[in-house]
C-alpha cells in the first residue's frame, strides 16, 4: 500500500517512515505543504498522512485544495492539537481521520488500515462474513456455524465494526469512536468488558476463537490464529 507522509518534524517523520516500512507499506515523505499538495495530486496514493502544522501550506489548506480538485484519497491528520474542535476542523476540511500526537504506532497502523480498506470497498454490503461467523445486515441477525446468536443492539454494533475491520487491529479508541461515537481515550477497561461479553457469545461455545486480543494495541477479529 502506498502512503504519502507530509510531516516537517524530522524525528516524527523518521519514526513513522521506519515503522510503516517494517509494516510493509511503501512510504513517500515530503516535509512541506506545497510539495505535499503536488505529490498528492498525481501520486495515486492509497492513504495520505498530513501534519496540521506545515511550512509553505498548512495541513488544513492542503486537504481543502485536494478536495476542491476532486482528489478523494483518504487523509489521516496528525497533530499536536488534540482537542475536539481541532478534530472537527480537520474533518470539515475534508480529512477522514484525526490522530493526536503523541500516538502509539499501533494506533496509526490500525487507522491506516481502516482508511485504506474504506476506500477499497465502496459497495454497500448486506452480509459480512469472517470464518464461519455470518452477519445479515438487513435482517440484523448473526449466526455462527449455522447457529443463531442473540445479540443486544450495542453488541451487534460492536461486532459489526469488528467484522468490517476483520483482519485489522482495532484500538479501544477506534471502538469508542466507531461504536459509541465519542472521541477520547477511555481510562478504565470499560471497552474490554464489552469485548469479553461479546466473546462469551460468539467464541465461547465454538471450536476456534475469532476475537483475538493484541497486547498493547487492541483487538482483532480474524479467522486465522
Amino acid at each position, binding site marked *: 500500500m502506498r502512503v504519502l507522509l507530509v510531516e516537517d518534524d524530522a524525528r516524527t517523520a523518521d519514526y513513522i517512515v521506519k515503522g510503516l516500512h517494517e509494516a510493509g507499506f511503501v512510504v513517500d515523505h515530503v516535509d512541506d505543504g506545497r510539495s505535499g499538495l503536488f505529490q498528492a495530486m498525481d501520486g495515486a496514493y492509497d492513504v495520505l498522512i498530513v501534519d496540521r502544522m506545515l511550512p509553505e501550506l498548512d495541513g488544513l489548506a492542503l486537504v481543502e485544495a485536494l478536495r476542491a480538485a476532486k482528489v478523494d484519497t483518504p487523509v489521516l491528520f496528525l497533530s499536536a492539537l488534540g482537542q475536539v*474542535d481541532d478534530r472537527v476542523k480537520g474533518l470539515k476540511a475534508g480529512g477522514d481521520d484525526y490522530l493526536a500526537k503523541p500516538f502509539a504506532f499501533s494506533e496509526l497502523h490500525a487507522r491506516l488500515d481502516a482508511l485504506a480498506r474504506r476506500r477499497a470497498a465502496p459497495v454497500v454490503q448486506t452480509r459480512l462474513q469472517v470464518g464461519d461467523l455470518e452477519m445479515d445486515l438487513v435482517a440484523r441477525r448473526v449466526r455462527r456455524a449455522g447457529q443463531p446468536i442473540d445479540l443486544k443492539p*450495542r453488541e451487534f454494533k460492536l461486532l459489526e465494526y469488528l467484522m468490517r475491520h476483520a483482519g485489522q487491529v482495532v484500538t479501544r479508541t477506534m471502538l469508542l469512536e466507531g461504536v459509541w461515537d465519542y472521541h477520547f481515550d*477511555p481510562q478504565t477497561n470499560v471497552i474490554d468488558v464489552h469485548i469479553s461479553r461479546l466473546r462469551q457469545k460468539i467464541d465461547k461455545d465454538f471450536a476456534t476463537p475469532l476475537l483475538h486480543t493484541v497486547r498493547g494495541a487492541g483487538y482483532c477479529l480474524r479467522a486465522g490464529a
Partner: protein
Amino acid sequence: MPARRFLRTSAFRLTLAYGGLFGLSILVLLGFIYWNTSQSISRTIDETIGAEIDALTQHYRLEGVSGLIAAIDQRTDRGPLNGGLYLLTGADGRRLAGNLDLAAATAARRDDRLTLPLTAADGTPAEGRARRVDLAGGLTLLVGRDTRALAHFQLLMAEAMAWAFFGALLLGTGGGLLLSRRVLARIDGITRGAERIMRGDLSHRMRLDGSSDEFDRLAATLNAMLDEIERLMTGIRTVTNNIAHDLRSPLTRMRTQLERTIASGDADDLREAGLHAMAEADSLLATFNALLSIAEAEAGIPVADAKPVDVSHLIEDVVDLYGPLAEDKGLEITAACPPGVTVHGSRELLFQALSNLIDNAIKYTPAPGAITVRADATGATVDLSVSDTGPGIPAADRTRVLDRFVRLDTSRSTPGNGLGLSLVKAIARMHRAGLRLEDAAPGLRVVIALPKTA
C-alpha cells in the same frame, strides 16, 4: 527627593500649570482694573476741560476779550492747585493770558487733544492734556489740565499691582508645591511597597491612612490583588508538588522494572517489561492530557462550537457504555431521564464528565450497589447527576476533592490520578454550570447544574 527628579514629576508640572493659569488670571484682572480706572480718570479730565472751555467761551461772548482775560486770570491766580492750564493768544500770536508759554500755542493744532509736555509760564515744566479752541476775532484758547498727578497715581497703581501679582504667584506656587509634596509622598509610599514585594516579601501590604481618598482606594485594590496573587501562587506550588509526587511513582515503577529486566537479559521478560512500560507511559500521557484539558477549561474558555445536546441520548449512551463494567462489579446502573431535554454545549465534554463520575462511582461503590444517572429539568437548571450507594465524601472534604490530584486517604490505594473530579469541575465551568457534591444518604451524588436553554 533630588531636585531634578522632582522637576519631572507630574505634581510639579501641575503646580506650574496651575500657578501659570492663576497668575494669568490675576494679571488679566489687575490689568482690567488698571485700564478701567485710567479710562475713567481720563474721561473725567476731558469732561472738565470741556466744561472749562464752555465756561470761558461763555465769558468771551458775554464780556468780550477783557472778560475772558479776567476769567483766565482768576483761574490761574488760584494757583497750581487748580491744575488747570490756560493759554490765550491773540490773532497776532501774542500771549494775552494764561499760565502756559507760547511754545504750547504752536504745538497745539486746532481742536486737538494733545498730551505733550508743556512748560508753565514761569518756566517749570508741566505735563498735561489740552484742547485748542479758535474764537471769533482770531483768538486761540488752549485749555488743559495737568496730568502729572494722574501719571504719578497710575505709576503707583501699576507698581502695587505688580507686587500683588508676583506675591500671588509666589504664594500660589509655594502652596501648590507644599500640597503636591504630600501627594508625592503617598505615591512614593506605594512605589516603595511594590519594590519591597518584588524583592521577595510577598506578605507585605500597602498602608492605608483611613481617609478613603483615591490613594486609599488604590492601596486597598493593590492589597486585594496581592492577596489573590499570593493565593494563586500557593495553589500553583501545591499543584506542582502534587504533580511531582504523583507522577514520580509510575515513572519509578517503570524504571525499576526495566532495570530488573535489562539485568536479567531474558528476551521474553524484555517484551513483558516493554509492554508494561508502555502501559505506564500511556497512563502518564493520559494524566498529562487531562491536566492540559483542565488548564484549558480553567483558562475560562467557554465551549467552542456549542451545539444543542440531547440529554436523554447522552445519558443512555453513557449508561450503555458502562453497563457491562458495572454489572461485572455487582453494581446496578440505571438511567433516569425524561425525553426531550436539551442543553447547549459539547456532547463530547459532557459525556466525558459523566464518564468520569460513573468511573468514580464504580470504583468506590461496593457490591451490591446501585448507580443512577439522572437528568432533572424541573428546577431553574438542568441537573445532570450521578449518584451511588457508596461511602460518599465527608462534607469537610467536598471542596478539596475538586482540586487537582487530591485523593482522599481512604482511596490512596485504588488506581487513579486524582484528576477525574477536577476535569468534571473544569467542564462544568466551561458550560457555565454549577457543580455540587451532595450526600445521597447513603452515598454520593454529584450534580452538574447546566443553564437551561432559553
